[in-house]
């Protein structure tokens, strides 16, 4: 049995002068989360729209749940749920009405559609707001309703196009919890995001896209290894103890690196950073700080920013080409 629940090969799509997709291959294993990471305009949304049957590619093939997206879109539509980048709930309808409508369009009997709506509203903590028009909802509530709408038909594959863009950190974590629950219940999730942090938190595998092309595909750990992993940053309460902090951080530094005082333009002086290879660095650092009696104002493990990821990946691509040229 085909274990790939999403399989796309050589997808190309051009809008006027823009080559939105320039030969994209994607593969997602059943029961996993595939994170499609990239900046604005990289082609993430276009790829999702192709897979969700909203857009026909100029070239390429795509299979979702084993069904040809181009030849049998209606069959695919019975097996997918889509939550777009912009919450696409109907503002004039109540939470219940929004979900019941989706249920009816999925050929549920009205009674079953109502039951399913109540179930989802309860699960997304929207029961109290169920009878209010969606335009009275907060941004986070709207996103939850939007996500609930994509789950009405128990989809095998869920497409989430930037599900947390514009949400505050707490709401973002709530959303992550929902995604994890869906996967635990057997769904497969393809999610696009601009945040490495989000892809790292959710995805089993990450595909990095830029200018309509896949520039890297790896597990989150593999990707972090390639782009330099995480940075541990500590700011002692007493700036005079910065040197002690540097010494402790040196002890957990990734091979071949050293701790250094933050010198990046724009960052406030008085903190030290060190590249680390794993979260376990914290296990050593925290007791060491305590033993040395150092109080800290800031303590954080930072993933490289998307900019840094791209810098590293595209830089590596250039280097490879150079090597090829030399050989």
């Amino acid at each position, binding site marked *: 049995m085909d274990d790939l629940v999403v399989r796309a090969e050589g997808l190309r799509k051009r809008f006027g002068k823009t080559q939105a997709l320039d030969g994209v291959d994607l593969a997602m294993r059943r029961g996993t989360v595939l994170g499609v990471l990239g900046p604005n305009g990289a082609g993430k949304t276009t790829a999702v729209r192709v897979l969700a049957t909203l857009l026909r590619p100029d070239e390429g093939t795509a299979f979702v749940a084993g069904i040809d997206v181009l030849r049998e879109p209606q069959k695919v539509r019975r097996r997918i749920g889509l939550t*777009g980048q912009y919450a696409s709930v109907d503002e004039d309808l109540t939470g219940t*009405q929004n979900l019941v409508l989706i249920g009816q369009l999925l050929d549920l009997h009205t009674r079953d559609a109502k039951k399913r709506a109540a179930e989802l509203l309860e699960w997304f903590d929207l029961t109290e707001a169920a009878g209010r028009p969606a335009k009275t909802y907060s941004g986070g509530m709207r996103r939850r309703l939007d996500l609930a709408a994509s789950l009405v038909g128990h989809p095998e594959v869920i497409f989430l196009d930037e599900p947390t863009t514009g949400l505050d950190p707490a709401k973002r974590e709530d959303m992550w919890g929902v995604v994890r629950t869906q996967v635990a219940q057997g769904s497969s999730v393809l999610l696009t995001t601009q945040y490495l942090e989000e892809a790292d938190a959710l995805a089993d595998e990450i595909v990095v896209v830029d200018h309509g092309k896949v520039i890297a595909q790896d597990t989150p750990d593999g990707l972090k290894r390639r782009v330099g992993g995480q940075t541990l940053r500590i700011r002692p309460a007493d700036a005079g103890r910065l040197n002690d902090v540097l010494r402790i951080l040196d002890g957990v530094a990734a091979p071949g690196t050293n701790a250094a005082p933050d010198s990046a333009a724009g960052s406030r002086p008085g903190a030290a950073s060190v590249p680390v290879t794993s979260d376990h660095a914290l296990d050593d650092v925290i007791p060491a700080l305590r033993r040395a009696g150092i109080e800290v104002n800031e303590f954080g493990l930072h993933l490289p920013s998307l900019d840094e990821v791209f810098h590293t990946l595209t830089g590596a691509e250039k280097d490879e080409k150079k090597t090829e040229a030399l050989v």
Partner: protein
Amino acid sequence: MTTAVLDAPAHLDSPRGGSFLALVRHSAALAKRSLIKTVRTPEALIDVTIQPVIFLLMFTYLFGGAIAGGDRHTYLQFLLPGMLGQSLAMGGIALGQNLNADIEKGVFDRFRSLPVSRSAPLVGAVMADIVRYLTVCLVTLGIGTVMGFRISTGAPPTIAAVALAIGFGLCFGWISVWVGMIVRTSGAVQGVMFLLVFPLSFGSNVFVATETLPGWLQAFVKVNPITHLVGAERGLLTGGPVAHHLWMTLAWMAGLLVVFVPLALRAYNKRA
């Protein structure tokens, strides 16, 4: 595989009850959505309630004396079926505007990712307009009666008149749907539709008898679908010949559907 997937209801690969019944059911569900929206924003009904009343009052009392040589009652008897025609044509404009706004908001993306016929969202929106056209008829006939308009035929012709009016509105509305699909903003829909509806409603027999017009204008008025609709409405409400205008109206309705339904569907599929 995982049990949770097996627990989910079995996927049906063809819609319950065949594809035509499914289209009807899905369109009805989507029509209900449009109606809920209408109820939530009653001001969206101004164009089918207050506007026809204002036009009727204005043309009867302001211009009626001059146009009809002083006999306002005679003019009201003449004007009211005409106003029905104009109000129906104008009442269709909002349809294209709403659909355009829905597409811009991304609501239709969700519908398009569901296993419903591609035409269901459009058919549903058109069906919901039955309520608006019925409102036009009831408001116009109601206020007309207060002003002194008298139906001189009977109940069956009156019902036929209302049914014809609604039927015409449903067919004419597809022009608005098409325009809603091809222009960018909902404001532009209104602009384009006014350009169409004004010449059609004024270049007709709505306000004055066709015979009073210069020959070149008569040529246009005589093929204008609004003229035929109004002619049929006059016959059905106040007596006189009906057949010719009725057949011409039905022919126009069929023509509008044949041309604009495929155009609208194609534009909808191309968009977004």
